């Protein structure tokens, strides 16, 4: 793509999300979402083949539906409160419709079906933007309307997302689908604690974005999209295997890595609010996620996976330059002792 046009489109995506995060008028938020959606379609379709077309179409249809539902909720809210300012939502119906719309945008169950298919159909870099940047806008709206969200619906969607994210990822070998199911499960964790303490949602979002960014960077660095091609990294760049191991264990939520921090804080917050079975169930379901991360580490770092003899002498003619990888890796693994820092997110 022409660099000038690509820059413009990328800036529009950024601008759309910024508008969503910083507006106080509901109409501007809807405009921000639409701007974001329209501008990201060309980015998703950077490679022009039927697979990306299909993925982009699916993404467009689901997100457009969600935006329309959002508009409807905004109008109902307008009818009942008479004003366009973003505060809590004044009508339960509007609140439910808005929560469903934002769940559709985030990929929460039962609206999660588009996430694996869209993530699989696009390139790794576009998948990265999809799974990290695109989650910021809907999450910021959920943060702002959090006092008025119906707890039952949100918690049901959250727990179902954790279940689906765990079980759905078990049969996958394609890395992008694995990351998609991981995203569904993490979104579930984030929304489960939204009503109790939105700060923890933001913390989880921050740590999740760091870990997903690291994972995608490592995948892009080894140009691998399947488990099999990832298993060749011990031949090419053995250090990457260690980094993949650390980041995957962090995503699975193992102490003492930083992925444990959001899970611990969320369990703490939920337990303080006297729900005990829910965090236990969520924690045990997160072990399903850990299982398929472990499978990835087994084929990548903890064994020297069988490969053909040609692989051992493979030359890298062009070393991919990955920005920010070392700081990201450090942040996605060593942040646990800095847990008290979450007070800055208030």
């Amino acid at each position, binding site marked *: 793509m022409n660099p000038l046009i690509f820059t413009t489109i990328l800036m529009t995506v950024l601008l759309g999300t910024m508008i969503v995060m910083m507006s106080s008028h509901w109409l501007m938020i809807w405009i921000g979402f639409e701007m974001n959606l329209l501008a990201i379609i060309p980015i998703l379709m950077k490679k022009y083949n039927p697979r990306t077309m299909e993925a982009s179409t699916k993404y467009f249809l689901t997100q457009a539906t969600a935006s329309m539902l959002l508009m409807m909720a905004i109008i109902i809210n307008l009818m009942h409160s008479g004003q366009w300012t973003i505060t809590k939502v004044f009508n339960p119906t509007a609140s439910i419709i808005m929560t469903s719309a934002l769940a559709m945008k985030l990929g929460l169950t039962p609206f999660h079906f588009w996430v694996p298919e869209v993530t699989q159909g696009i390139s790794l870099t576009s998948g990265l933007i999809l799974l990290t940047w695109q989650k910021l806008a809907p999450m910021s709206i959920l943060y702002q309307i959090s006092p008025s969200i119906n707890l039952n619906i949100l918690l049901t969607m959250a727990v179902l997302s954790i279940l689906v994210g765990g079980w759905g990822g078990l049969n996958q070998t394609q890395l992008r689908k694995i990351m998609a199911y991981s995203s569904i499960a993490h979104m579930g964790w984030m929304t489960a604690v939204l009503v109790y303490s939105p700060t923890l949602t933001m913390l989880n979002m921050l740590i999740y974005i760091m870990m997903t960014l690291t994972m995608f960077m490592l995948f892009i660095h080894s140009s691998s999209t399947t488990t099999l091609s990832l298993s060749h990294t011990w031949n090419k760049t053995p250090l990457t295997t260690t980094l993949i191991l650390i980041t995957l264990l962090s995503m699975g939520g*193992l*102490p003492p890595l930083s992925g444990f921090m959001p899970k611990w804080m969320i369990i703490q917050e939920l*337990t303080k609010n006297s729900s005990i079975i829910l965090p*236990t169930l969520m*924690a*045990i379901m997160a072990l399903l996620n850990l299982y398929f991360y472990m499978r990835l580490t087994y084929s990548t770092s*903890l064994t020297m996976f069988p490969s053909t003899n040609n692989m051992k002498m493979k030359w890298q003619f062009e070393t991919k330059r990955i920005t920010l990888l070392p700081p990201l890796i450090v942040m996605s693994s060593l942040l646990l002792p800095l847990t008290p820092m979450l007070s800055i997110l208030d």
Partner: protein
Amino acid sequence: MLKIIIPTIMLMPLTWLSKKNMIWINTTTYSLLISLISLSLLNQPSNNSLNFSLMFFSDPLSAPLLVLTTWLLPLMLMASQHHLSKEPLIRKKLYITMLTMLQTFLIMTFTATELISFYILFEATLVPTLIIITRWGNQTERLNAGLYFLFYTLMGSLPLLVALISIQNLTGSLNFLLIQYWNQALPDSWSNIFLWLACMMAFMVKMPLYGLHLWLPKAHVEAPIAGSMVLAAILLKLGGYGMLRITTMLNPQTSFMAYPFLMLSLWGMIMTSSICLRQTDLKSLIAYSSVSHMALVIVAVLIQTPWSYMGATALMIAHGLTSSMLFCLANSNYERTHSRTMILARGLQTLLPLMAAWWLLASLTNLALPPSINLIGELFVVMSSFSWSNITIILMGANITITALYSLYMLITTQRGKYTHHINNIKPSFTRENALMALHMTPLLLLSLNPKIILGFTY
């Protein structure tokens, strides 16, 4: 406590910056020095604990376990030298780094005051152990072993996290120093029964309790020697240590909640001892014997009398040293014949007489011969369980007999008789191996002269 933790952490830069011919020497020497520092903690002047800071403390229960942990690191390094000799330098350094990381987490776990920090470090010990088992084990079954190990432990310990946080909400603090003064009875309700279960299951899986022990033979057999040593000697004791700490908060439910686990342990120790008599794999035999000894510790901890606590602590230390020594002996066989089958390497006394002396001593301590500390531990547990209920003497007596049977079976099969014809060209024992066995045996024998230091806080 930082005087032990910081040197242990600094062992990691030491390995990465050492020259190729100095890595083993440097790390073994400095870890021996660190273990000498930790010996000073055994001097506990009063009945109270030694408090080093708000975060670390050491009391007569954790001090012997800490000394055992720091003592084992040089032994693990010595034991691993042979099987890593053919690996590239970076992989050797990675292995030593994993061991050091594990050591750091273990030291911090045994001395943590705050129970949530204990939990985080308890879980943190899983990661290096998993990497050691899966990356450096020898057979394909190691993958399955690592998964079983990780998931059994995590399934047990996630409810523990929730339980600890809910206890923190109720009482305001989980600092162990405070809790021993605060102690109130838990009210009797269904949710407190689940709280009891949630607190104890993590440690039951780690010990392991008889029904949940499936991960242990797999993990012990597939791990490399240092992994087996640290698993048998220390990681199982984490479960015992955790149980001893957390039962102080869980009265009075323990009086009736303990029955199923007592039954499982009493039956399980006989079952696992009997399985030992039918094992063909040497490491598997030692692994099942670990389950059997730990079942005794579970019985002792759940009975909650002063003598049983003394027996539990003594048994933990004694079993740690004995089991680790047995694994080293089995590994010396494995390095020569590359097989763990017992009958493939028979009659070793003729070929390696000094090693046969170590085998004899290890088997004798395993079957709890007087006056070793193994006997003190077992005897105290048998006596206290007899006073708890007279009938248990039948099971305990049967267990002692069967333990003697399989220990002698192991000794006689590997050492006595005519040697097999294919092992008459094995290398003689290295000085390193003899030193390893001596370093295991010497604390064991010396402690039988003054067992007071390992008898825990009820002495």
